[in-house]
């Protein structure tokens, strides 16, 4: 009897035992993993952002892979934004993160735009948003997109539009490659409302002469007529529109940098 007990088991039995054990243990591991996810507090990896080195120093550390590092930083920045958007709506390190990112990749236009609008609208930090966009324009002086977006940032500036500066950058955008038509229209609208009807007239005229869009040309003619009449009557106030409070919302599910909803003039 004892000899039988000590005899080696057949291969199939040993394998069946091993598989049964593996399955039972696997099920236990599965349950434990599931339970621990709900029961244990998780350490937020975003804490690490607090000690991101400065972009100036991190650039040499990437050993020639600045863009790759910037892409990783971009993913991290989006995670940071998303995490805080869902939880506490505090964006203490947002400027720092985007500053590093744009130092690593100075031509990364989406990073400037997204970072600036997130900072201004949700981070409630307009000076940092402005600084980020100005940095972008400084590094990319030929970018019509950045000039336009900076104009738009001034146009929707929380607690009061800055139409003068908005018009200045829309005009710049109109001279650069990119969205020239729209930039001219925005510039004209800003000038008109900031009290420069003569400049607005000239800008609308440019729109009428250069736009391939018939509706836009029609709008330009209408506005030119209004400005002309107002100037002839010496009543500049007649051409000013009543501007509503600027609102820029970032849609819940919109991908980063693409979610700006604008109240265009």
């Amino acid at each position, binding site marked *: 009897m004892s000899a039988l007990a000590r005899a080696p088991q057949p291969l199939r039995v040993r394998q069946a035992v091993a598989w049964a054990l593996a399955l039972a243990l696997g099920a*236990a591991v599965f349950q*434990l993993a599931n339970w621990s996810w709900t029961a244990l507090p998780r*350490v937020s990896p975003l804490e690490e952002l607090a000690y991101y080195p400065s972009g100036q120093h991190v650039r040499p550390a990437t050993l020639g892979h600045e863009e790759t590092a910037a892409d990783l930083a971009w993913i991290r920045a989006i995670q940071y934004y998303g995490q805080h958007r869902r939880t506490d709506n505090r964006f203490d390190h947002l400027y720092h993160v985007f500053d590093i990112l744009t130092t690593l990749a100075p031509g990364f236009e989406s990073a400037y735009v997204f970072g600036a609008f997130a900072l201004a609208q949700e981070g409630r930090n307009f000076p940092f948003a402005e600084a980020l966009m100005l940095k972008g324009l400084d590094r990319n002086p030929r970018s019509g997109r950045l000039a336009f977006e900076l104009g738009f940032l001034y146009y929707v500036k929380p607690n009061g539009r800055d139409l003068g500066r908005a018009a200045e950058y829309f005009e710049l955008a109109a001279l650069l490659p990119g969205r020239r038509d729209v930039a001219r229209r925005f510039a004209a609208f800003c000038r008109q409302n900031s009290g420069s009807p003569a400049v607005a007239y000239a800008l609308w005229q440019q729109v009428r002469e250069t736009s391939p869009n018939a509706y836009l040309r029609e709008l330009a003619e209408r506005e030119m007529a209004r400005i002309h009449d107002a100037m002839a009557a010496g009543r500049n106030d007649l051409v000013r529109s009543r501007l509503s409070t600027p609102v820029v919302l970032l849609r819940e599910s919109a991908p980063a940098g693409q979610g700006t909803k604008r109240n265009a003039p």
Partner: protein
Amino acid sequence: MNVTLIARSTYLEAIRDRVLAGVIAAGVALLLVTLIARPLAMGEGTRVTIDLGLSSITFLGLLVVLMVGTSLVAKEIERRTIFNLLSRPIARPVYLVGKWAGLSAALWTVAAVLGLALWTLLAALGHAGAALSIAEAVYLAGLELTVVTSIAVMFSALSTPVLSSLYTLGLFVVGQWSDDLRRFAADAPAGMRGLFEACANLVPNLSLFNMRSLAASGEATSVLHLGVATGYALLYCACMMALAAAAFESRDFK
């Protein structure tokens, strides 16, 4: 008893290997490099030192697992020393468990030495108070390496060293993303949610062993966390060993 003997010989073999000495030297060098990186850290030099020191334990340990662990069984087959062992009354699962235990012990040694080096450096910088959080983080890193070793031994019993390394590395990477998988599952469409959650439960939950961020801010974790992590590591390793045994039993050595 046989398990202890095999584990002991595996441990001694790993300790004598130059790879281990090299790894410890690299870990210490990396700690010293953090001294240079301190001024770049915007006043958070201590955090960077702790974080990099703890990361180096995991990554260098992983390197040992990939270089030594994945060829543990294959090397024995190649040298034909496995015949001497398996011709004796040693069950194949016992042999595998012995190999895993021996290499795990070597990795615990690496983790302990590097953890001690990290604490010594911090003490020299005037931050000796972080001892508890570092000890806990090193303990969890040791558990993590033990789990990865079990995966490596399982693949080593099944496949070639190169493929074992790739599979082990793949599972390590996916294991690091297990929490992200769950977050992704929460946002996924209803039909896919269950699938993602199941995947997150099946891959090694290595996020459970990560308290680097916590340690970097000088905080300690809960006893519950340490207990769950220990239990999880033991269960996962046992599961991997059972799978390895199931596959290894039918392997025919020529």
